[in-house]
């Protein structure tokens, strides 16, 4: 196994707010290998930025430990950690030229003028900025400012590159372009990178691994594929991509397979996920109780109404043709709404609103997850 670039052990942060305490980050554990790119994904307020700021040293954890390259850095001040931080709004020094912005850290480190000059030039070349050394941040476009912020950090050759939603201030097109560039740069330099975002396509497309966070806790860590196809919790299933969740009564449990009652008297069997972490907020599967069936909209096939036991029956409540596929909203008898995306093929029958249809779910692409405990 490669050397660990970062090791977080039970990292917890509580903030004092009004008269109480808020746990922003709750016992986060994470190991990051050298050269890995890890994105932190989650809704706002999930603790992803706080975690990143603790790794940087802007915040000190309330408990737990942070190890960078096998050195305990839990209490080390920011300026001794050798990390590079790219801020959401870039935080370029407005009173300094591009050159002085990029040279800032090298000067603080006390390097020789000549070395500084070479390094700054290289860094600016690397991010694709030429002839901007004497300009001021106010004279640059948003994308250029972003590049300067990157150059300012990579010129320091940091142990860790930390990025806090660095692309959220750019327009959509530039954002997608910079995404690829940052990833390319990260691979070229072989630099370990932690990247916080709330944009899932950004998180999925850039990372070796993704950390999905919710309410201060890590919900799941894994590759884009793992997280999409094997969500470990209802939150992850719902947060990543689109997912239909049906609550169905369990009739029998066999190893990793669950059989449930469909609404029309039939049965349906699919594999189930037993979360690897023990979570008290989750109910175990039990016969006679409901389990949550997670189905991606693209795993559903809509067919003309047939009413048998081996399919689900519903009424089309919305039918939208978007070119590559048809997006249906199907309302079940119990008023649950199921989304189905059917790839469009020539001469395919498109069902219209109000029509009664049936749909089948491919068990291979369906998944049972434990339900959340109801609050009593």
């Amino acid at each position, binding site marked *: 196994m490669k050397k660990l670039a970062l090791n977080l*052990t*039970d990292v917890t942060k509580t903030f004092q707010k009004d008269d109480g305490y808020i746990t922003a980050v709750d016992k986060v554990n994470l190991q990051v290998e050298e050269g890995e790119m890890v994105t932190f994904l989650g809704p706002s307020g999930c603790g992803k930025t706080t975690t990143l700021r603790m790794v940087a040293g802007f915040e*000190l954890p309330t408990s737990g430990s942070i190890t960078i390259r096998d050195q305990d850095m839990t209490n080390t001040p920011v300026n001794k950690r*050798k990390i590079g931080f790219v801020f959401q709004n870039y*935080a370029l020094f407005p009173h300094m030229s591009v050159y002085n912005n990029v040279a*800032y850290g090298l000067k*603080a480190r006390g390097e020789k003028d000549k070395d500084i000059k070479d390094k700054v030039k290289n860094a600016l070349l690397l991010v694709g900025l030429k002839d901007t050394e004497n300009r001021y*941040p106010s004279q640059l476009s948003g994308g250029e400012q972003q590049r300067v912020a990157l150059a300012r*950090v990579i010129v320091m050759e940091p142990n860790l590159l930390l990025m806090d939603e660095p692309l959220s201030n750019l327009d959509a097109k530039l954002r997608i372009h910079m995404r690829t560039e940052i990833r390319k740069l990260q691979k070229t330099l072989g630099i370990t990178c932690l990247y916080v975002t709330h944009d899932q396509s950004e998180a999925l497309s850039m990372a070796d691994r993704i950390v999905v966070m919710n309410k201060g806790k890590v919900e799941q860590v894994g590759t884009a594929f793992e997280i999409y196809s094997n969500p470990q919790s209802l939150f992850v299933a719902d947060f990543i991509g689109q997912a239909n969740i049906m609550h169905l009564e369990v009739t029998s449990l066999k190893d990793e397979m669950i059989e449930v009652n469909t609404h029309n008297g039939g049965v349906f069997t699919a594999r189930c996920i037993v979360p690897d972490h023990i979570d008290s907020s989750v109910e175990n599967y039990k016969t006679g109780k409901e389990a949550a069936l997670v189905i991606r909209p693209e795993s559903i096939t809509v067919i003309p109404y047939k009413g048998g036991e081996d399919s689900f029956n519903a009424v089309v409540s919305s039918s939208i043709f978007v070119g590559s596929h048809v997006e249906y909203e199907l309302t079940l008898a119990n008023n649950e709404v199921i989304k189905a995306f059917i790839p469009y093929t020539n001469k395919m029958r498109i069902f219209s609103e109000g029509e009664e249809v049936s749909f089948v779910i491919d068990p291979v692409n369906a998944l049972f997850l434990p339900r959340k405990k109801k609050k009593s």
Partner: protein
Amino acid sequence: MSTTKVPRTRSSMAKREPVLFGTLVAIWLIFAIFIFLPIIRLLLTTFVVDGSISFANLIKIMGKSYNMRALYNSLILATAVAVAGTVLGYIFALAVTRTSLPPFYKGLLGAVTILPLISPPFTSSISLTLALGPNGMLLNALGISDFSIYGFLGTWISETLTYFPVAFMVITAVLNTMSANLDDAALSLGSSRWRMFRTITIPLSLPGIGNSLLLLFGASLADFATPLILGGHTFPVLPTEAYLMITGMFDLKGGASLSFLLLLPALLVFILQRVLIGKKSYVSVTGKNGAKSGFGKLPLSLNIIITAVCTFTVAFILYLYAIILWGSLVKVWGVNNTVTFEHFGYVFAHGKKAITDTLLIATLSTVIGSVLGVLIGYIAQRKNFFAKRIFEFGSMLNYALPGTVVGIAYIIAFNQKPILLTGTLSILVAAYVFRYYATGIRSVIASLAQIDPALEEASFSLGASTVRTFTHVTIPLIIPAVLAGMRYLFIHSMTAISATIFLVSVRWTLLTTRILESMTELQFSQASAFSIVLIVIVFIVDAIMLALMKWSTRKFTQQEAISYEKIGA
């Protein structure tokens, strides 16, 4: 591995941020010596008789009808000045923000109102004496012989002219932030221009009016120089009474007790003002789009009144300044009108020490005060620490107290060992620093609030130390605010007198005290010449500082909109 460690939030600041900790300790120590010690000594002198707490001194003071009249006069005068100054300031503010007067005229209004702000506080008293005093120029011209400027009337006029520019600035700011759409809405709903003015403009500017009333009340209450020159024996007020009791009768206890009477209303005003500002005005600030669409026009009759009042006031102020200039150039005021430069000759021959002393003291105060102001403002805005509220209150205390109170507290505190400072340069500098660095602190705090902490974090994360970050990132970004504070400090260190009149000595003297001496010796021409020299010096330095402020921001003014804005969070 899973053992929970002790929460680190409790780890001591001394270890975590040694530089900050050291600075804090040093500042607390300075506060203890120059702010808390004097005020405590003042209270002890007032309330301790023969080693036990007693109200005897206070009762003795209040038993004398003359003192009670001084208290009454002080409050009446302060109220009158607050009301008149606010009305005048409001009219000027309306003229600048709500009328279609030509731009050059508005510029003139702005320029003329700056004059009283940068002049020594008794400039208008001197010129009023020259115009309306015995043998006054205006009286002679009008043929009035039985008129006395001394007393309530003269003091009131003089203080109103001196302080209304403050009201003007405060109210202008509020009038400018109002949304013009409200005027449009009122007019479109069928209200008349008078009704619009009465129901929209005035109610929405109430916060500005309230703030202005408090500021002017406090300023008048504390004013020492004006009543000393114009009050005369018929109109005693607390600051002059306290001064005379100490310098004339050497009664330190009596002076301390009188200044205690002065301290109470002053502190009350200070606290009221903080509450008022803390609540934030309910003016609808909707970016700058309000100002662009133009405010509704005022009724014609009001326009005429505003134009008349402004023109008269500006003419009168210019006349007063012209009179001082004239007074400094004639041989003997009112007797021999031959133009001569002999008074300036006198000033440079015999007043040279006063000029160099004043400049030295003002420069030292400005430098030391600015450094302290930046440190205190930075710490108060960016850091959290034990007893922060007391820290902030303490830093502003000397500013909130009337100068006379501070002056008396300083002689009581520093007249004896272990800290014997009377007669030294340091006591004068300290008096100015802790009274007038307040503006610097406030502008630094306001400026820092505009700067995203991410800029400092960026510096830390690039490996820079706390100190390097402060000197290379924070300071350059707040330079305009620092210069604004320096400007205020320098002007007041050159011109203020209420506290330092108690602290001057043979070794260290000030231009302002020379002016006062000349006035009491009825050497009007000398007083005028001293005043002119002082005003010119202040004016030049002020212009330099203003130019520096513009120059220091030239590089990144465009940037402000982008980088200072807090995004996300």
